[in-house]
């Protein structure tokens, strides 16, 4: 069988160009070169595949010039016409992970070339792209390179050849929401007994079917006296003053914003907009009250239905933002809301 042609994508760090200070390095292609982790991949590919070109791009460059970087890289990949595209592995590097996921998904979607990547399960790129491309589950640092390559290379060969892909536990990819049948070595009853023994001994065990995510929050008791209550607005819909003064990221937000709306009766096209990159912003930009209903609450304030609208609102973009980050943001501004005597919060999404 002819060797599969592979194009490999890595960031400036793994290309040994530099760290954060070189993260604005623009995309370039090195035809015929095998760079950094490509060496280990090449070794593992053996006779099955070879890297015919390596694309290097700085993480900041990619994320800040998303459309251009994507278009440039897609053109480079198209030119090489590989059988399979491999990005990373990105381990726990957040922006690198998002870049790997973005470009792998784009190559697959727009060029029709199968793609795989790899990263740590908590990398925000994993949650964002696991349903779009196969993402091999890696350790959280580059110390896990060998383990990552051992899964990434065979999976790349399989998708490159268009072979059937087995279950996540067999192939080593992060579960992607698609249930795949396969035969275990032992029958179910034996697996159940073994699982029970582990559970009884308080040892770690792995369920074969994780229940759907139950991050449920018990609702607070109803606000009894709305007419005297101080109500605040909080949104993950990315509403910010025009110009996005605090540069809240369009996705994978690293922080939230706190803005004063004292005296603001209505959010207009001239004064507010959304920073969110995960939905069509046209209607939110036209009238941000559609996401953050300041106008309606001002009316209710006037009518005496609510006591008052708190003069500060809190905002971030929910798009691709890690759950851990969201929790941290909320813990911080909830304390502020409490200190300011807010009785209730209206939390809007998109």
């Amino acid at each position, binding site marked *: 069988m002819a060797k599969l042609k592979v194009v490999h994508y890595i960031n400036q760090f793994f290309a040994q160009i530099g760290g954060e200070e070189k993260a604005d390095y623009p995309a370039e292609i090195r035809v015929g070169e095998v760079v950094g982790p490509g060496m280990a991949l090449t070794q593992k590919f053996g006779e099955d595949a070879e890297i015919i070109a390596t694309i290097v791009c700085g993480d900041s460059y990619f994320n800040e010039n998303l459309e251009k970087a994507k278009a440039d890289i897609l053109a480079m990949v198209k030119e090489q016409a590989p059988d399979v595209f491999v990005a990373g592995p990105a381990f726990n590097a957040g922006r690198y992970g998002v870049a790997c996921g973005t470009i792998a998904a784009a190559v697959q979607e727009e060029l029709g070339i199968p793609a795989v990547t790899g990263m740590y399960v908590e990398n925000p790129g994993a949650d964002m792209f696991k349903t779009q491309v196969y993402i091999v589950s890696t350790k959280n640092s580059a110390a896990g390179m060998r383990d990552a390559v051992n899964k990434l290379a065979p999976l790349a060969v399989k998708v490159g050849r268009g072979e059937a892909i087995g279950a996540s536990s067999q192939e080593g990819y992060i579960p992607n*929401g698609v249930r795949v049948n396969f035969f275990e070595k032992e029958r*179910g009853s034996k697996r159940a007994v073994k699982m*029970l023994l582990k559970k009884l001994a308080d040892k770690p065990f792995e369920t*074969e079917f994780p229940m759907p995510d*139950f991050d449920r929050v018990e609702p607070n008791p109803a606000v009894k006296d709305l007419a005297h209550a101080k109500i605040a607005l909080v949104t993950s819909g990315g509403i910010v003053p025009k110009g996005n003064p605090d540069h809240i990221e369009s996705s994978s937000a690293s922080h939230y914003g706190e803005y004063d709306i004292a005296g603001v009766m209505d959010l207009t096209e001239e004064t507010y907009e959304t920073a969110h990159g995960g939905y069509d912003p046209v209607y939110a930009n036209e009238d941000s009250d559609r996401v953050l209903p300041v106008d309606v609450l001002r009316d209710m304030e006037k009518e005496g239905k609510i006591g008052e609208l708190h003069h500060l609102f809190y905002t971030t973009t929910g798009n691709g933002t890690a759950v851990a980050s969201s929790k941290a943001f909320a813990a911080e501004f909830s304390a502020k809301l409490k200190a300011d005597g807010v009785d209730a919060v209206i939390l809007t999404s998109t």
Partner: protein
Amino acid sequence: MRLELGHIYIKDIQFAAESKIEDGILYVSEEAARAVALEDEKIKSVSFDIAKPGESVRITPVKDVIEPRVKVEGRGGIFPGVIAKVDTVGDGKTYALKGMAVVTAGKIVGFQEGIIDMTGPGADYTPFSQTLNLVMVCEPVDGIKQHDYEAAVRFAGFRVATYIGELARDLTPDETKVYETCTIKEGMEKYPDLPRVAYVQMLQSQGLLHDTYVYGVDAKKIVPTIMSPTEVMDGAIVSGNCVSACDKNPTYVHLNNPVVEDMFEQHGKTINFVAHIITNENVYLADKQRSSDWTAKLCKMLDLDGAIVSQEGFGNPDTDLIMNCKKIEAEGVKTVIITDEYAGRDGKSQSLADADPSADAVVTGGNANQVIILPKLDKVIGTLDYVTKIAGASEETLREDGSLEVELQVLTGATNETGFNKLSAR
């Protein structure tokens, strides 16, 4: 209780003038077996056939699969309350004919029932491709009601299996396994340091073709109760269901319950296998509440540390499974549950109709919606007329080249929820 289970290996089945077992070969007199089947006047005719592993044979529509056994020592007989008189079983000595099964087939309703392929891709999924099968296709008398026909075929299968089992009464088993349970007090004294564990088995109990019988009693009418795990080995629980064949327990699975076997294997070593608790899966929600309250209560009263809960069927039983799991866990008893999945043909849908965070240890028998192409086989035992109407199949199932495009649902026992198979999913 102490049950010695003698295994008699059957290497071949042949039709002959006289029924007997000799050198591991089962000879069956069709005439004698027919007479046994036709004892019920509701059955007009019966035809027998033999299907062997690897042969290009498809059996359908399958109703039940039964392993012939005979009780040689101790109280009662095989299938108490059904064939033998009501008497407590599970103690003494029983012989089982290993490597073979009696398979009943016959159309009861037009959309029903399962497929057993003896070769090809389907054979990888149904466990009964591995047994030598004595198949009996029963035709009912004209104008019979479905209820009566179902019962007639069910009983005919047990009669014939019992008849075959009796042929082994005077043989010497090739191998003997001993299953011994303790009383509550004995167990505590004997294994003071071992975790106390039980098996909670949920039984189909929803209505026609969805029923299970315990000592002859419709499981819909029981409240959860405790059995010695050896009782099922003598046929204390039998199947009356076959719709959506992949995750129904044929009687064969009750006789050879894999959770019972695998818990016994650890009994006295890593666990103290305290009891076999049975409960049901009724459609009426108050029944579900009562039954799950009771299973949790029994787990508590038995001072259990852990339990394995197995399911039977889809949808309605998902709710029982989660209720049982949640309530048993709430009593401080750790659970592992066994289920199967309906994740859609693309595997992307939510697998169960109910869920709870306490169900954190799940074993799955795989996605029953997975599509499989079953090639045309040389011989069909039963009739293909109905294959196109079985659950998971449709009128358009039969393709031009004679192959069938179906979901795993139609294969008898394919995604069994007692953990009978190796199939799983992630």
